[in-house]
């Protein structure tokens, strides 16, 4: 297998396939063809991601010289354990939401603009995948912008006019973030004369105490934090996720911020090294405080939202807090807890936003008032929401419990017992907002407007339940994901080769 041409060029294929497919998709015009084509492409990408993860498992880190230009002059694609895990997350969510997209996109965006939607979707997928696999700092910026630009377009395709202002707001803040990253890359290049991440890390260690490198570090951290919506740089996120089309809310909530977290990990650990990041710049302390504030403030704000998509968006900000909290500990336990929650939260939020999309399709609203008694009309959708909600809170037998378990363990491990208490307390706030929806849907009489409402179509229920099933599966058997995350954390901290 490893001798075949296909296997050697796997990292390039992963990116080139969706990139080349995007313009083809635009030429198809017809909504049905474009959808079928995108479905096939996204499933192929998923298959490639599985093979890639397996290859990394067997052979260790893969280094691929793009266009056969020798590293470090050419662009290197570098896939190690955390990278392979991220590729798997992005491509699996990307392929699961596609069967769902057909009905949802036709309903929310319309036949005429569907092929444009799928084109942007493929570009967004390309960008996210390439950000993960690239080993070149400038290449990372370019593909981050490809994914961001296409996600602005995707968000602006939402049903109401507020999606336009949400996309505009995201565009302004996202571009400022990207420009900060570009400044950071520029300063690094100025000092080292290289853009390759591994090469950078070697050349940085003797000069890392200079002002220029410290400034580069600060710009990078703030820029990436904007992209991953770390509190208080999250202001673009609630509107963007609320007014985006349902498929895109689910896709971006599960992947875009996660890729941002991955970029942060890459810069902190691979490029700058954990000694510099955490011991001389003390970024861990700052991140820890911001993460805890995010967990509480965003969760409390979520309780008071009447629009459930907005509630979930604020909850996303809080969950990014948990992930960053794990990373801020800078221990193997902490980083692997952060990565486990990154994976689990992708499953949770993907499922919850897909359930919201089902409800929006049938009732035309995602307000809590309009969900009164909905459980009688749409039992399967609401059941999915309940299981996803339980996972969000962290009830045993769901994926969320595993994340919370590892996070608490990592906090105790580092001697931060107040953090463990804070993690558990903030989970209770999640109980409050999930309960508001459950209470409305299960314990209130159905409103007059619900007579015509039916259960969502099978094509939309199946993807939702696949993600819910994954939540339950990874809640019961977490050995695989915890092993991958631990290996990933060890790779990042440089314990193993």
């Amino acid at each position, binding site marked *: 297998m490893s001798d075949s041409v296909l296997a050697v060029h796997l990292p390039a294929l992963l990116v080139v396939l969706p990139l080349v497919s995007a313009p083809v998709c635009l030429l198809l015009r017809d909504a049905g063809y474009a959808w079928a084509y995108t479905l096939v492409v996204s499933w192929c990408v998923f298959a490639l991601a599985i093979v890639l993860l397996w290859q990394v498992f067997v052979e260790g880190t893969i280094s691929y010289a793009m266009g056969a230009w020798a590293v470090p002059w050419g662009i290197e694609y570098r896939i190690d354990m955390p990278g392979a895990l991220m590729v798997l997350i992005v491509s699996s969510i990307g392929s699961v939401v596609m069967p769902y997209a057909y009905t949802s996109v036709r309903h929310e965006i319309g036949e005429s603009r569907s092929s444009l939607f799928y084109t942007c979707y493929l570009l967004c997928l390309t960008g996210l995948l390439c950000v993960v696999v690239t080993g070149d700092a400038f290449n990372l910026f370019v593909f981050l912008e490809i994914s961001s630009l296409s996600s602005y377009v995707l968000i602006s395709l939402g049903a109401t006019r507020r999606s336009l202002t949400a996309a505009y707001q995201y565009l302004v803040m996202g571009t400022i973030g990207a*420009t900060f990253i570009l*400044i950071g890359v520029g300063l690094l290049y100025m000092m080292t004369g290289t853009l390759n991440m591994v090469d950078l890390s070697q050349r940085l260690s003797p000069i890392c105490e200079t002002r220029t490198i410290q400034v580069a570090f600060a710009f990078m951290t703030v820029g990436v934090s904007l992209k991953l919506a770390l509190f208080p740089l999250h202001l673009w996120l609630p509107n963007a996720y609320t007014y985006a089309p349902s498929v895109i809310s689910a896709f971006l909530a599960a992947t875009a911020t996660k890729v941002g977290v991955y970029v942060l990990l890459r810069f902190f650990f691979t490029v700058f090294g954990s000694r510099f990041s955490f011991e001389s710049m003390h970024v861990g302390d700052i991140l820890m405080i911001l993460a805890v504030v995010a967990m509480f403030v965003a969760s409390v704000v979520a309780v008071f939202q009447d629009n459930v998509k907005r509630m979930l968006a604020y909850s996303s900000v809080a969950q990014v807090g948990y992930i960053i909290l794990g990373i801020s500990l800078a221990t193997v336990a902490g980083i692997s807890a952060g990565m486990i929650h990154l994976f689990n939260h992708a499953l949770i939020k993907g499922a919850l936003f897909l359930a919201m999309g089902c409800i929006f399709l049938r009732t035309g609203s995602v307000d809590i008032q309009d969900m009164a008694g909905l459980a009688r009309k749409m039992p399967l959708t609401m059941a999915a929401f309940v299981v996803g909600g339980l996972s969000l809170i962290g009830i045993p037998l769901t994926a969320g419990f595993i994340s919370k378990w590892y996070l608490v363990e990592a906090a105790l491990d580092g001697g931060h017992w107040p953090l463990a208490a804070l993690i558990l307390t903030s989970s209770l706030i999640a109980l409050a907002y999930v309960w508001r929806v459950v209470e409305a849907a299960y314990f209130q009489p159905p409103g007059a407007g619900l007579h015509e409402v039916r259960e969502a179509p099978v094509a939309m229920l199946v993807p939702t339940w696949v993600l819910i099933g994954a939540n339950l599966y990874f809640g019961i058997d977490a050995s695989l994901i915890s092993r991958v995350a631990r290996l990933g954390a060890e790779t990042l901290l440089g314990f193993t080769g």
Partner: protein
Amino acid sequence: MMEYIGLYNYWIVIMVMMIGFYIVIARPNLIKKIIGLFIFQTSVFILFISMAKVEGGTAPIIGEGITAYSNPLPHVLILTAIVVGVATTALGLALVVRIREAYGTINEDEIHVQDEVNE
């Protein structure tokens, strides 16, 4: 003192960046915000171009008797960054056109008022 004056192009970078950033924050007009954003990005282009200059170096074309060349790579990088910037600006302006069609205004404050009335 001379040390600070000698770095004048970096001072220009900082000034241009802050001017752009100020426009993005302070102006309610959505088109002016996009202009500010582009000025903000432009400052980074100047930063990259400045760092490419090697003292006494010429254009990076091999010739007789030339020993020092300026670094061509930042120019290439910035060419890509300019493309990204132009794409961002184009998309931002396209969004403003759509916002104008939907709201009848490109003033951020008036859009907020309209959104709150509809809540």
